[in-house]
């Protein structure tokens, strides 16, 4: 097919015995928006790197504009018009917008001398082509991520891109910015530039792509027109499993008992105001709200990491004063932070070390030394119970996938036998099958009487797993939703973003 900008044929690639790609083919037409989807470890990144000439395939060929390459060099790929925008965007934070846009093409062309004016002219031309305006003298580190993306796209464009590959461009930007990005992509498409969009957010796939290629475990599952797919089908193709999505039911008769945790009039100036709610054992209470709504701040207060100006916290009907995480843990409150890598884990340490760190005291022998057999026993018990995929507890946590890392964080807190477990973004950055597995763990805990607070950005996650939802906005509880099963994603989304204020009342 002469019309194809890129054809990848029968690519094989193995890393140290692990087959990352097995007989994968892909073709992208001129002006086509093509989506590449797959879970973590499905081979998406390897495939992109092969196309960009960064990784050499073991077998197979790459045909660009009719010319076949068995081995492509990175600089050749660029000259052939292939531009990859990695997730980190590869920008120079300390340089200006105009320098960022113009530097790489000057490198490519072998320019030696330059002036600020020349660079500005190049950048201005590029930005004009996609109809964007950004202060050319601003340093890139001062721009929002969405603006940085525009700079990266403009740079790709001015280097004569025929095909732009974007690696998960929407993970760090807001809904409105995603829409803007999509309009930029449509503009590129109209000019005959092809886009390969790598994503694992399903809703986006349907919105932007014409065709979808699904990878799983290094194999190609197939090519599909986006119109033929829906959420459930795509999930099935990506994971090879289908997931039940019945909402979580809470035995309402238990509300007759006194609540486990009660919060009354909790206030902290500038963060949240008059937060009151009760939590019963066996409940999964969802808290949703935009970033800045105060949801995480409330959670931190309950965990003793954020002081309060007013209000009371009661456990079992008795007022308690939670001033530190140690006190919270003693009261039976656990908190799983949103930032797993920095706050949840000692990434460089062994999985086992991470699990027992919260309960070291209970592992001390009579000589106040850590009882090794006992420690091993605890570590292995949790690895087994939460099905953490690792050959040994001594392996470092950073080698694990996001899902397994999160299971380690769960294990670490579950080891303290908490009664109230606050989960802040429990499945951020975790792929679908691990996600549903973590949801299962959470539901199971609730069914056994633990009270769960789930804070999340993902509306489907909250709807599917919570029996009650609090919507927070600007530091206040805006609304409590008791009939979760009657709620739809769209309506909850509108409530959270206050799109239709009249409905909120």
């Amino acid at each position, binding site marked *: 097919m002469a019309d194809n900008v890129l054809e990848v044929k029968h690519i094989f690639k193995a890393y140290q015995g692990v087959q990352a790609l097995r007989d994968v083919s892909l073709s992208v037409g001129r002006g086509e928006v093509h989506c590449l989807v797959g879970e973590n470890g499905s081979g998406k990144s390897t495939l992109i790197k092969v196309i960009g000439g960064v990784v050499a395939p073991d077998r197979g060929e790459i045909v660009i504009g009719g010319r076949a390459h068995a081995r492509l060099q990175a600089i050749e790929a660029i000259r052939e018009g292939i531009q990859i925008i990695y997730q980190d965007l590869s920008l120079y934070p300390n340089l200006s917008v105009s320098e960022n846009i113009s530097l790489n093409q000057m490198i490519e062309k072998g320019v*030696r001398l330059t002036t600020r004016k020349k660079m500005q002219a190049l950048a201005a031309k590029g930005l004009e082509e996609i109809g964007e305006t950004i202060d050319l003298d601003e340093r890139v580190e001062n721009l929002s991520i969405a603006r940085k993306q525009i700079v990266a796209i403009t740079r790709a464009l001015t280097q004569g891109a025929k095909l732009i590959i974007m690696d998960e461009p929407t993970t760090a930007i807001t809904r409105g910015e995603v829409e803007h990005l999509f309009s930029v992509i449509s503009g590129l498409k109209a000019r005959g530039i092809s886009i390969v969009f790598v994503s694992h957010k399903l809703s986006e796939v349907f919105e932007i792509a014409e065709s979808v290629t699904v990878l799983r475990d290094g194999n190609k599952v197939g090519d599909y027109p986006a119109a033929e797919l829906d959420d459930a089908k795509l999930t099935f193709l990506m994971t090879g499993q289908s997931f039940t999505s019945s909402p979580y039911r809470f035995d309402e008769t238990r509300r007759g008992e006194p609540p486990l945790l009660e919060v009354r009039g909790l206030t902290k100036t500038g963060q949240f105001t008059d937060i009151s709610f009760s939590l019963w054992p066996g409940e999964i209470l969802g808290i949703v709200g935009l970033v800045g709504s105060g949801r995480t701040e409330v959670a931190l207060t309950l965990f003793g990491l954020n002081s309060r100006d007013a209000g009371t916290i009661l456990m079992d009907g008795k007022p308690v004063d939670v001033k530190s995480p140690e006190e919270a843990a003693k009261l039976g409150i656990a908190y799983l932070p949103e930032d797993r890598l920095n706050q949840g884990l000692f990434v460089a340490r062994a999985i086992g070390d991470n699990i027992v760190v919260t309960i070291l005291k209970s592992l001390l022998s009579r000589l106040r030394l850590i009882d090794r057999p006992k420690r091993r026993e605890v570590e292995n018990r949790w690895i087994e119970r939460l099905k953490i995929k690792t050959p040994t507890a001594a392996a470092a946590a950073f080698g694990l996938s996001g899902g397994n890392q999160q299971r380690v964080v769960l294990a670490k807190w579950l080891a303290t036998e908490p009664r109230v477990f606050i989960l802040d973004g429990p499945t951020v950055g975790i792929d679908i099958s691990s996600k549903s597995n973590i949801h299962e763990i959470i539901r199971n805990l609730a069914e056994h009487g633990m009270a769960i607070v789930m804070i999340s950005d993902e509306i489907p996650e909250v709807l599917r797993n919570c029996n009650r939802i609090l919507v927070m906005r600007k530091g206040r509880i805006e609304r409590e939703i008791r009939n979760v099963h009657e709620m739809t994603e769209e309506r909850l989304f509108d409530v959270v973003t206050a799109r239709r204020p009249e409905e909120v009342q």
Partner: protein
Amino acid sequence: MVKRLLRRNETYLCFVVIAFCATVTAVNPAFFTLQNFFDLLHDSSGSAILAVGFLVILLSGGIDVSFPAVAIMGQYIAVKALIALHVSSLALALAISCGVGLVFGAVNAFFISFFNISTLIVTLGTSGLFYGAMLQVLGSAGVYASVLPNCFKVFGRTNVFQLKTLTGSSYGLSVFALVLAGVVILSWIILRRTLLGRVIYAMGGNMEAVRRSGVNIRAIQFFMYCYMGLLAGVMGVMSGSLIQYSDPTYIVDTELLPVLAGVMLGGASIMGGAGTITGTLLGMALIALLEKNLVLLGIPSYWDQFFVGVVLVVGVSVTHIQRRIRGRRQLSLLRE
């Protein structure tokens, strides 16, 4: 325009330099004379040249602590060679000293680019290694003015023009100032007007992105470390000419702190990617003023290091706090 100036670190540094000069003049009017400024320039041009080279490497995210060793080795080897050859040629002295610098720089660049070792460790290691070897081979005896080749003495005394004071004694602007001006202009062109310079800044910002852009990083590293070596070689000759004496134990212990302090005060980031030549020169000016004029304020000169240390710590803390405030302002903008 004014707003832009007020946002720049250099503007504040300039105020500090002026304030310092004003204070010293108030206490001791002998300070504020053209002769004193010419002397200051004569004494400090060498350090300023080192600072410019140091800035280039700092910008790329690297660090080179071997320049004091390079400078003194270049000087001492050149002096010894000239004595052995019985010639007095400034060109030859410079060629030998710069040659030593280039070899040194190339060795640094080799280890840094081929083995990807931390630049601090490499330059610390090579400077100990070569300097130690030189002391072993050439000895450590100082060369006094009586034996020092004449070309050094002439170089140190040559003035661009001569003036006379009211009392009739003559003074002038040293040729060292011209050397410094040359180095500053050349470095400014490299940093501001060439792609190479932009890439050096980019390396300090995001090394991985530079790698992906397809540029030959190895070549740039060889250029930078050789350039530093070359400048250190020039400074070595200047230093020997200035004091009319060559002692292999000089420079090694005395130049690292003031150069590092001057460059950091000038607003360069130790993480790379930020800094200007103007800032570096101002920073060096402040350090030089401090070192040479505390005596005029009645403070004994052995307090020099102490004050340079104080200025370094305070100056860098202020820059850091400024950055943090700016960062916070941006964060609050984002929240809105």
